């Protein structure tokens, strides 16, 4: 096992597009780190840079103490001692399961007897005991992904890279493999870099989550921190579906631009500067109630959608022209209904310049 470190790593594509911009990241030995971001955010680019399929144009990438890329020279993927699982499993169709799994051992020159013992052991570990002679075409999607996982960990890689490894599976299976993946990697003490666009998956699995956007790191934090204290309004919106509102702040509190929303200073966390600012309202901090006759029109909104959830309903509101997301444990109004809205609290950020 080894740590991974990136020091001001940038990657500019030949077309001129920026793939990664000034990435600094330390992944500790045995740590499980998820790379999260919308599509095009650079998370796969970052993973492929660590894997060695892409060469950074500047900056230093280290795996353990060893420099694998420094903007001029770049070590090829095969010499980096990694394991990798791809979204489309990439199990080689012309070899059986055992031959697939033992491939990294063959390349490493492990003797035959030890190879078959290790293959049997690792197949047992992923729940495919006795599958060594099977043709990959006869396996289900979940089993193929387990073969891919077995192949990735059989050589005791320094770092395990997961490229949307669970995204192609259907929901119940994905959930089960998520559990198995965590149990397995924790038990083996593997250093893992896991790329996903599934927010719940990133929060559920990772020790730390890296949120990327536009090739830049927006925040690196534990899952709890990420939900509680998003570093920017953008992170809050991407991770927690927060509503972003632009306005200004003074001693009395926050006033939205062109919207009736007002918040007292007691309901605001985060930046304290007066003047122009932006706030992010987490869905759980929006309260709704059936509208009462005496309530003024300024605090009533129309329900756009109302989705049922196990631990509360996701309600989308049109509040005087602004779309607000609300997570309510008690209320599930009908679509088109009028409701009273109250914002309990919000996080304030200094306005971007």
């Amino acid at each position, binding site marked *: 096992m080894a740590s991974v470190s990136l020091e001001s790593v940038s990657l500019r594509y030949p077309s001129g597009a920026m793939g990664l911009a000034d990435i600094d990241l330390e992944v500790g030995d045995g740590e499980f780190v998820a790379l999260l971001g919308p599509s095009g955010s650079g998370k796969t680019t970052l993973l492929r840079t660590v*894997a*060695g*399929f892409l060469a950074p144009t500047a900056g230093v990438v280290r795996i353990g103490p060893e420099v694998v890329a420094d903007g001029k020279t770049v070590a*090829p*993927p*095969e010499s980096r001692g*990694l*394991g*990798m699982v*791809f*979204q*489309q*499993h*990439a199990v*080689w*169709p*012309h070899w059986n399961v055992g031959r697939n799994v033992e*491939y*990294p051992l063959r*390349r*490493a020159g492990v003797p035959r007897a030890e190879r078959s013992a290790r293959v049997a052991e690792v197949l047992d570990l992923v729940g495919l005991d006795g599958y060594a002679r099977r043709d990959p*075409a006869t396996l289900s999607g979940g089993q193929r992904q387990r073969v*891919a996982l077995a*192949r*990735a960990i059989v*050589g005791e890689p320094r770092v395990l*890279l997961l490229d949307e490894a669970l995204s192609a599976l259907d929901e119940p299976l994905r959930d089960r493999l998520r559990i198995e993946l965590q149990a397995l990697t924790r038990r083996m003490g593997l250093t893992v870099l896991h790329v996903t666009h599934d927010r719940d998956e990133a929060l559920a699995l990772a020790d730390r989550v890296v949120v990327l956007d536009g090739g830049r790191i927006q925040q690196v934090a534990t899952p709890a921190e990420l939900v509680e204290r998003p570093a920017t309004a953008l992170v809050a919106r991407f991770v927690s579906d927060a509503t972003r509102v632009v306005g200004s702040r003074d001693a009395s509190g926050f006033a939205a631009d062109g919207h009736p929303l007002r918040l007292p200073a007691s309901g605001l966390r985060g930046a304290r500067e007066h003047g122009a600012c932006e706030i992010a309202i987490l869905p759980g901090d929006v309260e709704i109630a059936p509208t009462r006759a005496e309530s003024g029109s300024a605090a009533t909104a129309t329900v756009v959608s109302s989705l049922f959830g196990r631990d509360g309903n996701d309600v989308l509101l049109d509040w005087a022209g602004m779309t607000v997301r609300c997570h309510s444990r008690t209320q599930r109004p009908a679509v088109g209904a009028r409701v009273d809205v109250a914002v309990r609290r919000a996080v304030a950020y200094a306005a971007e310049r």
Partner: protein
Amino acid sequence: MSTIQRALTGAAVPGRTREGARPIRPRRVRFDGVSLTRALLWAACLALVLVPLGTILTLAAGGNHLATLLQGDVVEAAINSLVSATLSAAGAVIVGGGLAVLLDRTDLPGRRVLRLFALSPLLVPPFVGAIAWIGIAGPTSPVNLWWRDMFGAPLGTIYGGHGVVFLLVVHSYPIAMLVVSAALRRVPADLEHAARIGGASAVRALGTVTVPLLRPALISSFTLIAVSNLADFGIPSIIGLPERYVTLSTLVYRYIQSGTVDRPLEVVATIGAVLLVIALVALVLDLLASRRRWELDSSASTPQRLPLGRSRPLVAVLAWGFVLTLTLLPLLALLSQSLLPAPGVPLAVENLTLDNVVRAVTAKGTATGATTSVMLAVLAGLVCGVVGLGIGTLVTRTRARDNGLLRAVAILPQAVPGLVIAVAWLVLAPRIGLFNTPWLILCAYITSFVALVVQAVAAPLSATPLTVEEAARASGASRFRALLDVSLRMAVPAALSGTVLVALTAVRELTLSVLLLSPGAQTLGVTIFNLQQAGAYNAASALSLLITLIGLAGLGLAARSSR
């Protein structure tokens, strides 16, 4: 209640009460426009494919000329045919496969332009290639003349078996290259990435993962090329005969032309039947071999090109030199031969003349040959276009149990040597009153080339889900109306380019035309062939160059307009 709500709850909609009131019973057999179209297309297949091939088989079985087949010259010709076809197919797969990997998976400089050059022999008729190569390596070529001046004897000529194999390779490797290229693009890049992560170098990942996955493509391109080379006429007759290297196609030509055997038609039909059986066996073996096909996922990531590193300049020079020698050099040789008064005259400015070109173009045979060829090619293109459009659309856009069979029958002639098709129509000719008419050639063209349009139409259409027709049906179109309005409309552009392809192939055809030759039905290919046989090498070269250039221009225009 809104209309949508009514539809959702299933309540009767005003104006549709008639249907709503009566329960819809599924009718098993419905005879409508689709069934009629299907019946007509089956009839066309019957007349164009099954009857000719059936005739040749029955005649061969009835005549019992198997003893004739064991005569020395037939056996020798058969061996020559089999050996040249197998060797040339192996060579073509090696050259084509190697070029495909080099051009698709490495960072070879100028690979896009080189790819176009490498594919260009497809556009040059094989007999034209043969004429051109005589200019490079024939007994009176500059190289051999110079060698004879230096050492007293020529270095060696292209005439003979080795030349036949070489030219067959040159004219069939682009097919292998196309097939392998397409297969390469279907191998997901992730498979190689996984091998790299597993510790394999880029070269090893290519060799252990990608190349083994190409096996089905290599096998099927080998079969396709071997079968089509089994009975090529132009190359063995121009390159092989001067050294008495006889193949089945040149032997059959001799039998038909000079009547050196009794009942030549039956003997020829027996040879054709044997070839047909060989072709069918090859086809079945190919099907069996490729049945174990791997299911490959689509991949989002683009494949990585193998960096050639320090050997890049060397590989580039070798690849460019190799391809240009095979493609550009023959055209230049053709050009110099066209401009020189006679073979062996040194290439110098004062010797250049346009006489050959003028003589070739103004000769009476040329004009009639051109007229016949153009007429036959246009008609063949139109008929193949219509039939191929129908079959290609029907087998991809409808659900029916006989789709697979209909498609297989229509495509079958592509796996049958042209020689067999020519003999089949020759046998059939007196019975349908087409003996000694150009229409016989037209029939043979249609049989041979309808598969081109079927494949051109079927390939793009099979990728579109059937829901587009179902959407038309749901909007109130009948089965036939949906076929006309949606399926056929989608297929027309592909059918048009297929038609152009057929016409351009037919206008330069030789094997069928030369065997089905009748008075007044001499095609352009036959004109050139006769000029060559009569010793008018330079006139033959001039005409070859002209039709090659016209063909290239035509295909270029077709490619441009279809974009």
